[in-house]
């Protein structure tokens, strides 16, 4: 329906209609929303002008998601109003929001991989392209081609989305948001963590698009990555605990100002605790050594070693094989060739189960799907890798540990120790972990391996999608672990983070480890230098 009404009016034609509007494109007037007794948002007012890119930052739980859900009609405000072009509106769900010109690019990609790009683009509008029950795919496809062309996005729309790269999928999502809101003058596109999982190139592409499209749309940009928010936005609102605490002009603000407003204290300087980074003597024992590690199509003959207490960063553009390398090191995706040594002993990289016994641990990229039993208690999550070891077993004069009978008391102590050590905020020791915030969930994933007493950790984007305060905690823990002699392979998409944390940084390109750069305190490589090697 949306597609047919707008018919052949192109995006650019409508630009002129929208040129002079007196009232702001979108106003949020002292909106409040609470869930049960918790105030998710209280008395928040925001205005977005035509053609403006507005940044929205805040820690997890600050109310960003709630605000987006109010704007897309998933929740209704308890009080306050939403005003579009000067007239108050009530938004009845995402479809209604799209009609009114508000569309969202969600954090999780909502694509159906086995359908083509254009089918995905018009997934909810396929009935509008039918005549007598038969879908006119040609019309759908040409309309889709037209939309992305006007947006300046290049995609092979006839190919199934499963063949798209992560970045291409994200571009499809952006196109979808535009096509949904196509029959309004000047849509408002909400971008919820749009760069999560994107590599440098993808980000560049996305930011270029935003920059060009601001002529014909307004954007709300939500991200944890403050440098990106500063780069992209005109103005930045800071939310903290459900209230609007500050508003910045992006041209005059910097990261530490935002951080201070978000957290309510100074954090930027010692963010990565670089002063605590030890220099690793070349006489230190080698904890992990990979020789000629190869995974067909992804990782090509990669060799490196990591010493006790060393943090070895791995960077590279999306598709360079760094994630597969991490999985291959641990035996999650068994390598096709090459060997792995842990503490000098050869290990069988075909089973994580066996690797764990040698001291290896793996922190996966996607904590919800791969790291946590979301609907099981914290205690059970923390102890999971340690079940069957004497750390969780009854002694009972040898019999208990022989059968590895689980000692609930030891298990609770283990959880209690982790809650204290990592400062995990949880209602109870046996709370189900889905109730915890993202940062606390990630600490539970770390706790699993700390309690297993793993001393070689492979971590894939360990701070992905967690807020500033939680990131700081994770950095602190990593530093402490390193001081205890734990070695880490630190795979990351965030260059500043990898640079800040690592002793050495391996750069991957097309499956090969092209360089390993020293990153001692005071002489860290620059982002630019690394990017140059990556591409």
């Amino acid at each position: 329906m949306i597609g047919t009404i707008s018919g052949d009016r192109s995006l650019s034609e409508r630009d002129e209609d929208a040129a002079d509007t007196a009232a702001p494109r979108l106003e949020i007037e002292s909106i409040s929303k609470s869930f049960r007794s918790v105030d998710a948002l209280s008395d928040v007012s925001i205005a977005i002008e035509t053609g403006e890119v507005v940044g929205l930052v805040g820690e997890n739980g600050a109310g960003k998601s709630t605000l987006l859900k109010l704007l897309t009609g998933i929740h209704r405000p308890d009080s306050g109003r939403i005003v579009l072009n000067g007239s108050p509106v009530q938004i009845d769900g995402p479809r209604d929001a799209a009609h009114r010109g508000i569309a969202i690019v969600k954090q999780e990609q909502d694509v159906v991989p086995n359908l083509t790009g254009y089918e995905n683009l018009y997934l909810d509008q396929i009935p509008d392209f039918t005549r007598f029950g038969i879908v006119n795919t040609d019309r759908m496809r040409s309309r889709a081609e037209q939309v992305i062309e006007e947006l300046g996005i290049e995609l092979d729309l006839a190919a199934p989305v499963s063949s798209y790269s992560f970045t291409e999928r994200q571009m499809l999502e952006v196109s979808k948001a535009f096509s949904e809101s196509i029959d309004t003058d000047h849509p408002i596109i909400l971008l919820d963590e749009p760069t999560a999982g994107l590599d440098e190139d993808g980000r560049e592409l996305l930011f270029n698009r935003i920059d060009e499209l601001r002529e014909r749309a307004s954007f709300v940009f939500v991200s944890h990555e403050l440098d990106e928010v500063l780069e992209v936005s005109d103005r930045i609102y800071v939310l903290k605990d459900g209230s609007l605490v500050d508003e910045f002009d992006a041209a005059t603000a910097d990261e530490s100002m935002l951080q201070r407003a978000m957290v309510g204290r100074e954090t930027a300087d010692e963010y990565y605790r670089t002063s605590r980074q030890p220099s690793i003597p070349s006489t230190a024992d080698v904890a992990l050594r990979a020789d000629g590690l190869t995974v067909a199509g992804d990782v090509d003959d990669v060799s490196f070693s990591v010493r006790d207490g060393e943090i070895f960063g791995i960077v590279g553009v999306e598709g360079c094989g760094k994630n597969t390398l991490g999985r291959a090191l641990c035996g999650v995706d068994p390598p096709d060739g090459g060997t792995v040594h842990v503490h000098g002993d050869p290990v069988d990289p075909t089973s994580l189960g066996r690797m764990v016994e040698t001291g290896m641990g793996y922190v996966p990229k996607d904590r919800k799907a791969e790291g946590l039993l979301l609907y099981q208690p914290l205690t059970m999550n923390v102890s999971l890798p340690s079940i069957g070891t004497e750390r969780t077993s009854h002694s009972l004069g040898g019999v208990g540990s022989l059968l590895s009978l689980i000692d609930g008391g030891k298990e609770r102590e283990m959880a209690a120790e982790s809650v204290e050590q990592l400062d995990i905020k949880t209602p109870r020791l046996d709370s189900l972990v889905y109730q915890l915030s993202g940062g606390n969930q990630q600490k539970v994933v770390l706790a699993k391996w700390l309690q297993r007493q793993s001393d070689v950790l492979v971590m894939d984007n360990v701070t992905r999608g967690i807020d500033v305060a939680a990131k700081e905690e994770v950095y602190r823990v990593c530093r402490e672990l390193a001081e205890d002699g734990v070695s880490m392979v630190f795979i990351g998409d965030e260059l500043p983070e990898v640079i800040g944390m690592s002793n050495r940084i391996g750069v991957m390109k097309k499956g090969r480890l092209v360089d390993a750069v020293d990153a001692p305190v005071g002489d860290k490589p620059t982002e630019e230098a690394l990017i140059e090697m990556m591409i």
Partner: protein
Amino acid sequence: MADGTLLDRAGARLTKIRAERTPQDWVIDLGPFVLLFLLVIAFSIASPNFFTVSNLVDNVLRNSTILLLVSLAGTFPILQQSIDLSIESMVGITGVIAAMLISDYQLGVLALLVAVIAGTVFGALNGIVFAKLKIPSFLVTLGSLSILSGSALLLTGGTSVPYRDPSVRWVSTGELIFSIPNIVIWGLLFYLLMTFIAFKTPFGRYCYALGENEEVADLSGVRVDRYKIGAFVVSGLLCGVAGALLAARTSSASPGMGTGLLLQSIAAIVMGGTALTGGVGGPHRTLLGVLVIGVLANGMNLVGIQSFVQEIVLGFVVIIAVAMSMDRRKIDIVK
């Protein structure tokens, strides 16, 4: 550091957010108790013969024991979010094996042990095909349901296998302790053993982890295949026990003697609180479901509801129990 203080200090850090319990949580936790209570009251009023020691022990408990064993068997695969559909024919073939070994080879009580081992082997085969060849468990066990029932028919020529051996019969119908039939004691022993396994052994713990999210278990270093096979081994073993005891109790065995147990056991497992979505519930809860089904069947008999109607009632019970226990936080789409 002292243990007590560690827990105390951790306790002090716990934030004051209350864990939210949904109405569904309460239904799952208390539902079977309430239902059992209501059924007992209703049937006590409806039939003077219901609430008597002889009816409750001799009929309800004794008749429920086979269902209990089979339901405990099915609990472990379901806890892992798999399912064992072959239990009916597993009971049939192990019973037939026992009866034939007793009548043709005079193996006596030893035959019962052979039946249990046979069940264990069949279960292991189910598990190996499922885990190693990565074929969905419902398909593997649907296949073995047919294979095993066909084999049992082939072995017996489709007839019942009677035998005379009082010592075998005693294993089931004797009264070693007070005047409780031995079969009930067996049921209770295996119930306690399975509950212990579920809570105290790594195998039990991994059943919950696998049922919740196999990928996470795998990435935590759990040797997933081993424990997937294990669930079917346990299932086969308990079906073997059920087959052997059923053969002992009736002094005969027939290929079809497990018929009807599958649906009843799924009803019992799910009603007890082990959802088909895996990861919650456990064998300790399955007993409740078994008692509900047992009381329901016995009560309906006593008040004279014909068996055809009973079958219809059971069908509704299964669907309602599944509907109430599915964890919808975990799944949005059902196929």
